[in-house]
């Protein structure tokens, strides 16, 4: 197995900059996820690693060997496509054997490997069929099998679960993660779905508009988003982001929203750090870190229930703080048993430890 390193990668299509100077590393045996919305450059980066796109600038290393000039065939990688790209004119067996025939492997050995993979993926009964006769899940597993059968250094996967229905997707997520761990295979996985990224990735690289915004473990990117984009993109429901400025509540420094009762006292050391951006701050707080109370408590902020969404395992409560059109809206996540009528008065408090502050202009987190 191997690591993959990308340095200052850049690629443009006509006038559109797809990848704008990305450097990152996918470590040996790790499951690295490229996460980002469409147009973020994640797929282009992946295809450049595979050799399917020629980068305009930058270097790509697999196993510390520069592979820019190598054709895909010589990079010892496997690629799983979003639409699987199973060869429609070949049976499942031939699809699986196809990569092995490329290296002129002996017939018996091919047979052995194909059957082994088919067994692991439980697709043995489909071996004689053509792809068009397979279910979506089966096709997906054949595509995986075709990647596995070669035992490549690196697996590259481009949204391989997108075309499955929700139930199957969840199931495959787990299987894929487990298989990857068992095989110890270096894997780079592209997705726009932050749930997939969080649940499967050892490390997540968040991208947007051709730039790499943050790399880290799922916990790191969730708990310490480096910037506004990551903060807003990861987590469901998304983090509450409220424009505010540095003010005071009594003699304590506080983050205040002008024209609204929303005001959160902060420690003085925090106040010092946000001082430089005092008029252009963004307060970030995850819905689960917004605490609710039906009674007024000291220091808690009065709000009004806008709507509640009971989801079974939890309840999402949308709140409005203050009156008027400009009043800030917040989301809170709370117990499934929570019930409230629309317009009911409620009091809220933020978990001070888990608050984030961002500079509205640069977008960067202030820590």
């Amino acid at each position: 197995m191997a690591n993959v390193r990308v340095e200052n990668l850049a690629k443009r299509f006509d006038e559109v900059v797809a990848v704008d100077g990305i450097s990152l590393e996918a470590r040996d045996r790790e499951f690295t996820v490229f996460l980002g919305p469409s147009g973020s450059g994640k797929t282009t980066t992946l295809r450049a690693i595979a050799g399917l796109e020629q980068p305009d600038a930058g270097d790509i290393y697999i196993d510390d060997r520069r592979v820019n000039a190598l054709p895909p065939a010589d990079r010892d990688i496997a690629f799983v496509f979003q639409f699987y790209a199973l060869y429609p004119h070949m049976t499942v067996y031939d699809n699986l054997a196809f990569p092995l025939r490329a290296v002129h492997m002996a017939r018996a050995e091919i047979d052995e490997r194909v059957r082994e993979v088919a067994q692991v993926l439980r697709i043995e009964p489909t071996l004689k069929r053509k792809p068009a006769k397979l279910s979506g899940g089966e096709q997906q597993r054949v595509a995986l099998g075709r990647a596995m059968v070669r035992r490549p250094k690196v697996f590259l996967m481009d949204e391989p679960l997108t075309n499955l229905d929700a139930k199957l997707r969840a199931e495959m997520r787990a299987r894929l993660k487990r298989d990857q761990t068992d095989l110890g295979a270096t894997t780079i996985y592209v997705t726009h779905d932050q749930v997939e990224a969080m649940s499967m990735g050892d490390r997540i690289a968040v991208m947007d508009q051709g730039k790499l915004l943050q790399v880290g473990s799922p916990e790191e990117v969730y708990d310490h988003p480096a910037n506004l984009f990551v903060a807003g993109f990861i987590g469901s429901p998304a983090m509450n982001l409220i424009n505010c400025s540095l003010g005071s509540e009594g003699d304590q420094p506080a983050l205040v929203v002008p024209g609204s009762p929303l005001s959160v006292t902060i420690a003085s050391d925090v106040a010092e750090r946000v001082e430089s951006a005092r008029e252009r701050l963004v307060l970030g707080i995850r819905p689960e870190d917004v605490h609710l109370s039906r009674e007024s408590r000291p220091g808690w902020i009065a709000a009004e229930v806008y709507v509640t969404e009971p989801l079974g395992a939890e309840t999402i409560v949308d709140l409005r703080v203050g009156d008027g059109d400009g009043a800030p809206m917040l989301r809170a996540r709370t117990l499934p048993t929570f019930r409230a009528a629309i317009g009911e008065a409620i009091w809220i408090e933020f978990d001070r430890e888990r608050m984030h502050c961002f500079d509205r202009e640069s977008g960067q987190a202030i820590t």
Partner: protein
Amino acid sequence: MNGRIKSGLALAAIGLVLVIYLLPIYWIVATSLKEYSDILARPPKFVFAPTLRNYVSLLLVPGEGLHATPFAARLLNSVIIASLSTIFAVAMGTMTAYAFSRFRTRGQGDWQFFILSTRMLPPVVVVIPIFLMYRALGLFDTHAGLIVLYTAFNVSFAVWLLKGFMDEIPKEYEEAALVDGYSRLQAFVRVVLPQAVAGIAATSVFCLITAWNEFAFALVLTQNTAQTAPPYIPSVVGSGATEWGRIAAGTVLFLLPVAVFTFVMRKHLLRGATFGALKR
């Protein structure tokens, strides 16, 4: 009830249309089986005693058995020239269409327009310089001369037609083959070609029909060695009186191969006919 009358009328109309289109062809076949006196009979004879004389005299030299007659030689020329030029045109067309479909080329639009525009060129416009060129190159009255010409004549059309088909084949298939350890050329042969079969078949039909039936170039650029059947058939007139029976027999023999080929390929024909102008 109204609907049934309507569909009955439609079927009758279809029958009538079929008769109109096929009657002249039936007449060709019938003429080929008639004796001379029956051919020019007034009123025209629909019922007659069929004879194979016209075919026999067209294909066999009297007394010399199975020697190639001039007509048989022309038919063979047509087979060689039309089939080889079709194979070349479709092969080159497939490759060029693939290159245009997959690779980014500077000025690609202009190149494609150039290729298509050659198809619009009337043969009579280029036949003069080509005649002079062939004279200089010694290609006058050669099989190679007509093959090259028909290939050039058909390849632009083939590129255009096949580009539509190539665009419809997702490029992920070759990319999969590329990462699976194959070169671009191997991916093209083993993954792209099998999926382009329908397009290739439809293109072949069109190219073959064009090359098979071409008249003007064959008329000007050949004498005997490489002459194809189309300029020859009208010349089977015989001496003394027009030998319609032999002309008809020649026509039938000439139509047969291409009709069979088209019939075999018919299911691709309808698809090819949209010229990629309709995205499905």
